[in-house]
């Protein structure tokens, strides 16, 4: 048919040009209101801080970046490791990792339960898990607050049954933040594990039992390895929003139990150190990108090993 390659080529070129035009509004919006500003953040991280917030334009300094890990001694101006910022870094990473582990431990059985329901009712179970995820994160965090406040559900019940005489302080602790993060991001763990398990060929499990494997062995040697892609995907999906969490630590952790997101916010609020805040933002972005790269590499290795 296409005996004239130049016509086909012209058609292809105009098709590609049209496709760029069609995508242009979306791409422009994202560049202007999402990616472009990130470049400004990068630039700001290398500028001198302004006296009342903002920066002194075109005066460059690395102080913003130094503040990420170090602090200047007010007396002799020497650099020392900043223990306050370090604690917040450590807390963010620690809480995110623990949340990831807990959501795997709870999410795997939940996903397994849903995946082994009869075909018809599976949708309903899945919907039950999805609904909270799509409801407002702040509202869900308020819900957790209502459960663990000093006058909240748990303390009320315990007081009523005389199990305690004083309300237990649960709100504004690291534990509260951990509970909140686990609660909020739990569905993000269940869904990818579910889609792995849903494809699981249960004849393999049966074969395991035929060979006298115990339930634990079947789980450990057959089911878990086959659902590894889902577990890895879920872990990344949970870890990334955790490390950048802002609302949950603010509402449940109070002022004391800050995470990275809150430290960043502080620099643009009370602390008025925009270059430091900008450097922290880029640091967070790098951590997230690294986590994604690890995921992409392990996913590639996973699909590679299946090729054998």
């Amino acid at each position, binding site marked *: 048919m296409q005996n004239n390659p130049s016509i086909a080529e012209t058609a292809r070129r105009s098709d590609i040009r049209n496709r760029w035009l069609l995508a242009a509004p979306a791409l422009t919006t994202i560049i202007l209101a999402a990616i472009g500003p990130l470049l400004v953040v990068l630039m700001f991280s290398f500028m001198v801080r302004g006296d009342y917030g903002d920066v002194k334009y075109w005066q460059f300094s690395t102080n913003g970046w130094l503040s990420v890990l170090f602090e200047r001694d007010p007396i002799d101006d020497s650099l020392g490791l900043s223990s306050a910022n370090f604690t917040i870094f450590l807390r963010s990473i620690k809480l995110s990792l623990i949340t990831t582990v807990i959501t795997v431990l709870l999410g795997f059985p939940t996903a397994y339960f849903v995946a082994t329901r009869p075909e018809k009712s599976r949708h309903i179970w899945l919907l039950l898990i999805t609904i909270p995820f799509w*409801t407002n994160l702040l509202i869900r965090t308020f819900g957790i607050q*209502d459960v663990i406040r000093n006058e909240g559900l748990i303390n009320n019940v315990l007081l009523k049954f005389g199990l305690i005489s004083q309300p237990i302080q649960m709100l504004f602790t690291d534990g509260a933040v951990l509970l909140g993060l686990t609660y909020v991001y739990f569905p993000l763990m269940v869904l990818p594990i579910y889609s792995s398990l849903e494809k699981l060929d249960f004849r393999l499990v049966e074969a395991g039992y035929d060979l006298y494997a115990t339930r634990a062995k079947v789980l450990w040697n057959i089911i878990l390895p086959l659902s590894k892609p889902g577990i890895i995907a879920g872990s990344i999906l949970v870890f990334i929003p955790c490390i950048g969490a802002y609302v949950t630590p603010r509402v449940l952790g109070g002022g004391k139990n800050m995470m990275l997101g809150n430290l960043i916010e502080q620099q643009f609020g009370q602390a008025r150190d925009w270059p430091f805040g900008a450097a922290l933002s880029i640091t967070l972005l790098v951590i997230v990108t690294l986590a994604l790269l690890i995921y992409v590499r392990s996913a590639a290795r996973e699909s590679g090993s299946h090729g054998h």
Partner: protein
Amino acid sequence: MCAVPHAKVALMAISSRGFSVKSQVGFSTIALLCIFALYLPIFTLVVYAFNDTDSMSLWGGFSLRWFKSASHNVAIQDAVLRSFQIAIIAATLATAMGTLAAIATTRTAPYRGLNFKYALINQPLIVPEIVTAVALLIVFARIKVWTGYTGGAYLVAAHTAFCIPFAYLPIRARLEGMDLTLETAAADLYANPWNTFTNITLPLLLPGVIAGYMLAFVVSLDDVVITEFVKSGGQETLPTYMLGQIKKSITPEVNAAATFFLVLSVLAVTAFYFISRKKH
């Protein structure tokens, strides 16, 4: 805000045998407890909204007074109205742009720049919200000083940008399942591209467009962090209003407003779920 790999249910039916090879000790208990725990805080919040006491402590009987006082609270009225205005405009823009972008990136042989488009469109899903929020704060604060304009357009622009991937993904998924036969047939019958689009492509694409619109709408309605940093004075949405209340003593009024929002989200998500399931 992250992409949820939309779990599809395979048609493969696993015949059930007498011996339950699928059961694992304790799994069902953990699962049921987790699902229960997923709803406990939400129910608690809703129950407190109907509580007839001034403080948020003990149960004082059923009452609708907090709903009444929330609906008379001018700040809440204003915040709810603004939330909806922004969500409607942002979701509409994001869906329109997402539809065009989806058409531009599907049903084609790979071409230079295709992966670049994917990466760009999905970018808002990857960058932590707090980072986007401070980036927009920096840039918009400048623009506000330069132009003197402090209206709602900043919020609409920010919301539209992060809603685009949520609108785009379901539309793209729908398009990928459609072949070009009908469009080619229309073109053979001398339909111009616009007629082909409005009479063939769009009607077939509609479930994807509706699903995308709803996701974008819910995501915009839910946003706290970016709105908190971008808004000018007096531009509270319901989520930022609620966040502002945590410093003060919370009254069940906030619960009542939250309950109203919750019902809307649940309705939208349930509708989305059934619309997106229909295509299979």
